[in-house]
């Protein structure tokens, strides 16, 4: 079991980073971005395309891909904050569902569905515990997820930029009246989460199967992780991601539980919802 759990840690780190992005989005720009990992996938695919067909060195292509992922996300953010500034979170999130569908299909068209020759940025084992090797990718994603969460927390809590962001998310009208530029800030948040998710997918994609659908559907376990923090708390999102990855790895060790593995994110989501809703609470808006 322990072996399996450690083996699942790489996936856990990936979930954690994506969960942090989802949480940031939900908190700061009122959207559950179902296209979060699809944007990352698209950026990565462009990077591979550039390195194979335009002959760019791997690192340069990766940087361009990450920037593109950020730009794509920013574009989506711009669309949403222009036309759906006042809409509720449901409508805003529904747009990202459409975008998820669009990005997957578009990547089939542009890049085909054959495996992409990803050049690993990181490769091979880092160290081993009890005979199970922990890969470099695992170490980096886990560290990255913690670092991003801590960084964002510091940014939001300690800086005036963070204060503006929080003001914007909690009292949007007041914030706008105070002259905080709502739209540019929102687009910036979109861009940053786009950059982060493309970055982490660029790191992980070369080390696992990386077809467009499975990369895009990473948003499901990530959402489960983010839900642990109620789409509010970054620390719990990270914990959720890591635990979910390890649990999936552990369950995969038992043949009879293999179907359970698929349902783990779903079960986690349902369980957390039941727990978080012991009492009926009425929000102000509706």
């Amino acid at each position, binding site marked *: 079991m322990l072996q399996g759990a450690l083996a699942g840690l790489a996936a856990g780190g990936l979930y954690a980073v994506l969960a942090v992005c989802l949480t940031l989005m939900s908190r700061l720009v009122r959207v559950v971005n179902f296209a979060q990992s699809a944007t990352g996938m698209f950026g990565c695919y462009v990077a591979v395309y550039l390195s194979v067909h335009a002959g760019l060195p791997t690192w340069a292509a990766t940087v361009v891909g990450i920037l593109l992922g950020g730009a794509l996300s920013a574009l989506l953010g711009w669309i949403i904050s222009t036309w759906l500034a006042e809409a509720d979170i449901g409508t805003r999130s529904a747009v990202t569902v459409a975008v998820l569908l669009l990005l997957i299909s578009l990547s*089939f068209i542009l890049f085909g569905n054959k495996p992409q020759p990803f050049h*690993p940025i990181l*490769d091979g084992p880092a160290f081993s515990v009890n005979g*199970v090797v922990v890969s470099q990718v695992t170490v980096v994603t886990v560290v990255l997820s913690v670092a991003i969460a801590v960084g964002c927390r510091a940014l939001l809590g300690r800086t005036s930029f963070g204060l503006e962001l929080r003001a914007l998310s909690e009292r949007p009208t007041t914030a706008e009246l105070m002259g905080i530029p709502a739209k540019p800030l929102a687009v910036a948040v979109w861009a940053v989460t786009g950059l982060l998710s493309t970055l982490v997918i660029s790191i992980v994609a070369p080390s*696992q*199967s990386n077809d*467009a659908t499975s990369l895009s559907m990473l948003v499901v376990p990530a959402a489960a992780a983010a839900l642990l923090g109620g789409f509010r708390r970054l620390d719990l999102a990270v914990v959720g991601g890591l635990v979910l990855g390890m649990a999936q790895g552990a369950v995969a*060790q038992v*043949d009879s539980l293999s179907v359970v593995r*698929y349902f783990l994110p779903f079960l986690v989501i349902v369980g957390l919802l039941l727990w978080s809703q012991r009492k009926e609470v009425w929000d102000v808006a509706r």
Partner: protein
Amino acid sequence: MRKIMRSVAVAAAVTLVAAGCADSGGGSGSGSGPIVVGSVNALSGAATFPEASAAAKAVFDAANASGGVNGRQIQYKALDDKGDPAAAATAAREVVGADNAVALVGSSSLIECEINNKYYEQQKILSISGIGVDPACFNSPNISPANVGPYHDMTLTLLYGSEVLKLDNICALLEIAGNTLPSYQAAIDEWTKITGKKLTYLDATVPYGGSDYTSYIVKARSAGCKAITVNPVEPDSIGQLKAAAAQGWNDVTWLLLTSVYSENYAKAVSNAGAGVYVPAEFYPFTDAASSQNKEWRELMTKNNIPLTSFSQGGYLAAKYFLQVIKGIQGDINRESVTKALQEMQPITDPMVGTPYVFGKGKTHHDNTAGWPIKLTTGSNKWELAADDWLRIPKN
């Protein structure tokens, strides 16, 4: 409720317009019109195999350019099933029912045989699949693929691993999609029957299209496996190889199937452990100098069709078909084509190790030879691993 009325009217209009378009297809009942040949293929969606039908089309185009068959042109219709069962059934009805095709040639799809084999029986039409995958391609009376198929291929790869490479502790990780488990199990049993050896370990729960295979790899490693046979699609296999590499498991031998035999795959693999071995279902296309593939290679290159096993399958299916219908005396229609295929003499081609025959059998699973090839760490290209066909011994 007036709305419903209106919508029905709209629907009717759309459908009727579309129906009007359909008639332009033209039939091939008899006489001097074109001979309609169809195929049902996975051309879009998450897993696509466009090369088989493209190759078949190239063969037919070449035949048309040199005067056609008995003076008649061949009209080849390659339809998309999108990996969707309903679309696969619809496509078959379009080409068989509406366009009145004489036969299906060069189909390559993951689900098409399973869904349409009964319909083909009903319509008394035969299908020479380019690449058959699902079990129904090999065990139904009206379908006979040009390829070996993943099941015999699995027996072959196990034979190669245990008998040629002399590996022991072979394990199997099976990605079961659809009803393929019994067929793979039968293939493994056949290997056991021939060699008397057993698998160390079999895991049939490996997900198809999963994202991270590390835990399955860790499990196999701790079970003491030295070699692993998998029935993967390319992306999954790459994921598995990468998971093993990330675990530092560099002495594992991979006994895989033709499904991973592509140049893309070779480029994408940076660490192949102790080597990836595949019994190629057709003469290895990566052997550029070979005479066996010369004709095929030239035609494909001319038509800008990727050089893959799929295009080999489609090419061969079309060639077999042409050869058979050229021998037909009298009108070429569905009936005469079916009769000719059922009564044909075996055709030998240097691209395959077993002669092809359609015949009247209830099943068509007689192609039993593969050509071993290998992919080693760092080479990023496939190399021949033998100088003759590897065959499944007849009991």
